[in-house]
């Protein structure tokens, strides 16, 4: 993956956010404070514009992270920013990242998310998506593994519906948090999906609608 592909991935994601931000707000409204889509869209709009000058994958995600850090706020801001900062560190000095490097970067990102937010799998947070998807990529760092990771991410996001939230704002609802998919998990699954779309010919965006979620 070269720097242009990294940019394509993230611009693609920004584009997707502009389509689904109301859906993410709606999910967050049910078990949180209704701003996850607005937060993410605001952040990626500004942050993506700051990537323009970046010459390497590492630089691109670093600029993105700094942009997120100064615009998103909320819980998702520091978490996504930390994730991209860790990718940037992993890919330092690389002109291009292999699928193996990509997997390592995503793995480091997951570690960063967990360090910042101390959530575990099953807590109904974005970790529920990142953990199995990264697992997938690590064990099979190929196009096939990436497609699989995207599929797994989607399923994991849907599976958060039946979980009781134990981290983040939704956790205050206790049992009442069951029955709605976690918004950060959905935004994370879409990030993995956009990655697969960028790197794998013929891969298409899945339906993310209120009916499905």
């Amino acid at each position, binding site marked *: 993956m070269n720097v242009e592909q990294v940019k394509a991935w993230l611009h693609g994601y920004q584009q997707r956010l502009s389509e689904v931000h*109301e859906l993410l707000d709606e999910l967050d*409204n049910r078990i949180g404070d*209704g*701003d996850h889509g607005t937060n993410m869209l605001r952040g990626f709009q500004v942050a993506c514009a700051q990537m323009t000058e970046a010459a390497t994958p590492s630089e691109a995600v670093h600029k993105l992270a700094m942009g997120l850090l100064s615009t*998103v706020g*909320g819980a998702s*801001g520091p978490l996504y920013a930390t994730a991209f900062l860790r990718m940037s560190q992993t890919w330092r000095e690389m002109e291009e990242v292999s699928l193996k490097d990509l997997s390592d970067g995503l793995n480091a990102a997951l570690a960063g998310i967990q360090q910042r937010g101390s959530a575990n799998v099953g807590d109904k947070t974005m970790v529920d998506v990142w953990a199995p998807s990264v697992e997938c990529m690590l064990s099979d760092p190929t196009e096939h593994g990436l497609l699989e990771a995207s599929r797994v991410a989607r399923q994991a996001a849907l599976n958060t519906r039946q979980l009781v939230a134990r981290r983040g*704002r939704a956790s*205050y609802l206790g049992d009442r948090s069951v029955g709605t998919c976690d918004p950060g998990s959905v935004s994370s699954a879409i990030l993995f999906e956009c990655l697969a779309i960028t790197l794998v010919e013929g891969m298409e965006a899945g339906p993310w609608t209120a009916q499905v979620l």
Partner: protein
Amino acid sequence: MNILHPNPDRLVTDMLDGFVRSHPGLARLPGTQVIVRSQLDQKVGLVSGGGSGHEPAHAGYVGYGMLDAAVAGQIFTSPTPNEVLNAIRAVDRGLGVLLIIKNYTGDVMNFEMAAELAQDEGIAVEKVIVADDVAVENSTFTIGRRGVAGTVFVHKIAGASAQRGDSLQEVKRIADKVAARVFSMGLALSPCILPTTGKPSFDLPAGEVEIGIGIHGEPGVRRGSIAPLTELVDMLIDRVAAESSLQKSDEVALMINGMGATPLAELGVCAHHAMARLDQIGVKIHKSLLGEYMTSLNMAGFSITVLKLDSELKSLLDETTHAPAWR
């Protein structure tokens, strides 16, 4: 029905500008959403903040004897680390800065990232995390309780401590002490309407109330049917009393806080019933605050906060402050 904002992106900055021009002691750090005292004293700096939508929190608590800076995020969204860092830099007088953080994942992470960045720059930063909402069960498996209206007492008392010249460690000790002794619980009679979407933050059938709400328009921890006010007030007071192990001879500060759309007339009636219940328990009310201190936009409802005092906290609570929203 909400106001139609010609430019929703400027909602927070326009609001802050309206505040600043109405309160001569306040200024906005240019290019930021940080409100600072227009004149800073040589003392430990106090910074708080969080999402907007809780007005008069947090800008209203900036002033002599309370905060030095308040950082405003977007509506119900924690401010970014950059913004918090701007505030820390602006108020540090070389004596260090205390961050007063409400226990929300977003607030904690954003303020902590800012603290790390400030410490890298050589600024001494301490933090206190307020988690006064007894509606939420406290357990090691969860992130613990939320920070709600009780935070205002931390602003006030830590503010008085810093104002008299206490060291950063001492201000932090006192702030932690207040945080450990303050207990709140609230309920909602209606959701709030989000200015961004124009939609209610939840649906509530007529005749029901949300019990154990936060301050971001979230539904409560459970739903109940509407009962006469005396019963609702007793329920909140009793829960707060149990969680704080209130004893007969305890002395407390009380706060009856409106969530945004409950008339002050009704808050006055709440205050009357709450004090009657505390009288029954045999608790002495040293001070009682009545009004809107930590709101959730235009949610109808109220919260009750009890702070258990001792002589140290009492004298700091009674100190002068010029912060516009303290009264």
